[in-house]
């Protein structure tokens, strides 16, 4: 079990126990509901954008430690980013978890690097990326709303 420390690092366990920005947001600009039917993880992501910049982001729901801590860290990483930066970060994060090939265009992951251990547990990659996919869906919905107006 000790070798699982690579996966369940202290930072991850801490974010799991005390998730940051863990709350429902009143009147968000963007919102999406994400589920992982395999394990029953459910996450809602809420965001407020100002001039295309993530001004506020929060989440609630329930999930495993990997899912919860990844969502928590995502909210910290995305705050203040514009849409292009957010998408680039998601892409780079996804590469780090799934792909051995070098991607020169990838941006630095900063504190998110702690989740890279998930790569060794392919069935858990979905746990780590659920919040990101949900964020992406919220963003897309928002863009959809904007274009229909």
């Amino acid at each position, binding site marked *: 079990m000790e070798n699982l420390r690579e996966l369940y690092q202290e930072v991850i366990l801490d974010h799991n126990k005390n998730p940051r920005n863990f709350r429902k947001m009143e009147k968000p600009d963007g919102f999406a509901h994400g589920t992982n039917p395999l394990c*029953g993880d459910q996450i809602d992501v809420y965001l407020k954008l100002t001039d295309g910049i993530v001004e506020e982001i929060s989440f609630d729901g329930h999930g495993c430690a990997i899912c919860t801590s990844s969502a928590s860290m995502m909210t910290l990483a995305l705050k203040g980013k514009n849409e292009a930066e957010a998408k680039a970060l998601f892409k780079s994060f996804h590469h780090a978890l799934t792909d051995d090939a070098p991607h020169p265009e990838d941006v630095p992951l900063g504190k998110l690097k702690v989740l890279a251990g998930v790569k060794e547990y392919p069935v858990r990659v979905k746990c780590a990326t659920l919040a990101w996919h949900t964020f992406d869906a919220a963003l897309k919905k928002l863009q959809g709303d904007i274009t229909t107006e």
Partner: protein
Amino acid sequence: MNNIAQYDVESIRADFPILGKEIHGKPLVYLDNAASSQHPVQVINAIKELYESGYSNIHRGVHQLSQDATKAYENGRASVRGFVNADCVHEIIFTRGTTESINLVAQSYARPRLRKGDEILITHMEHHSNIVPWQIVCEQTGAELKVVPISDKGELEMDRFAELLGERTKLVAVGHVSNALGTVNPVKEIIDQAHALGVPVLVDGAQAVPHIPVDVQALDCDFYAFSGHKIYGSSGIGVLYGKEKLLNEMPPYQGGGDMILSVSFEGTTYNTLPYKFEAGTPNIAGAIGLGAAIEYVQKIGLGAIAAHEHGLLEYATSKLKQIDGLRIIGEADQKAALVSFVLDTVHPHDIGTMLDAEGVAVRTGHHCAQPVMERFKVPATARASFAMYNTFKEIDVLAESIHKTIGMFA
């Protein structure tokens, strides 16, 4: 007690090659039997022998191999008949599994009979495969699905069953043993009450046949469905038992080869039972393997297996109950060999990964029974399910691993 004393679990384990495997450097502790059980050499060899020296298509050729394969396949059917004590061999239909068996009954029995306003009665603890086929047929016919609730202990509320069962009820479909809770349902009582109103009953026996002796004639059930891979056979083979009269009244489920007597463009004459429901080349090796699996179970004795597993269940229940922050989901008085549980501080998915590191294989998730999860207000559970080859020592490893898991997440 004699049975337990004579029960030689080590010699049984020696028959299952995979049990000698190591996972992450630890001896495998396989406690995911409710998802799929492992295979004894007797089953592996039956399938190996078929492919090495007896394989051909069946019911087709006049050549020797085809005759041999046909005989072996039909011997599998005969083993199943004896195992569930069906009246005749042609009441045993080979399917891909419990799911296909239930879909067959939904489409071939229920669909032509159901009208708007009719009802199908199921229970809150059904596996998705005993919910969704009925939802589909309800959509097709305008019939309505009614659900018998369950208590906090995880038992059916039988007074509610009696209330819900009525003139509109055209079929009752109930699991014999719940895959998520372990509850053994009073199927005999359910069948008797339904029959008193002339309502036929389908029993989903996927979780029952490896653990409980089943006699379809004593139960008087109209349909009984189960899968090969939960009773030491391979995946992709399953069984539908149906009463001859009902099966004869039903149209074929699928069209194709083997289910016909003659085909012309003016019309087709369907084959007799059981072939009417076995369109296309079936899972020949699966049927032969299932026959071997049943013979193996019969050799050990289902009574002795049930007694051993009951001992494991009681031991595991008492061991797990001693763990702070652990809650067992499903505490019915009558339970089969599984324990579903949640921890206050660790999500089931993390429990699964942590236990795996100790070589312990459990299932985590909603167990294809999301209404059960919702009933007990949990997103998922971890489930340890036992088979004839599990040992008390393995349960010690499980408990120890749960302690370690809690420690790591503290």
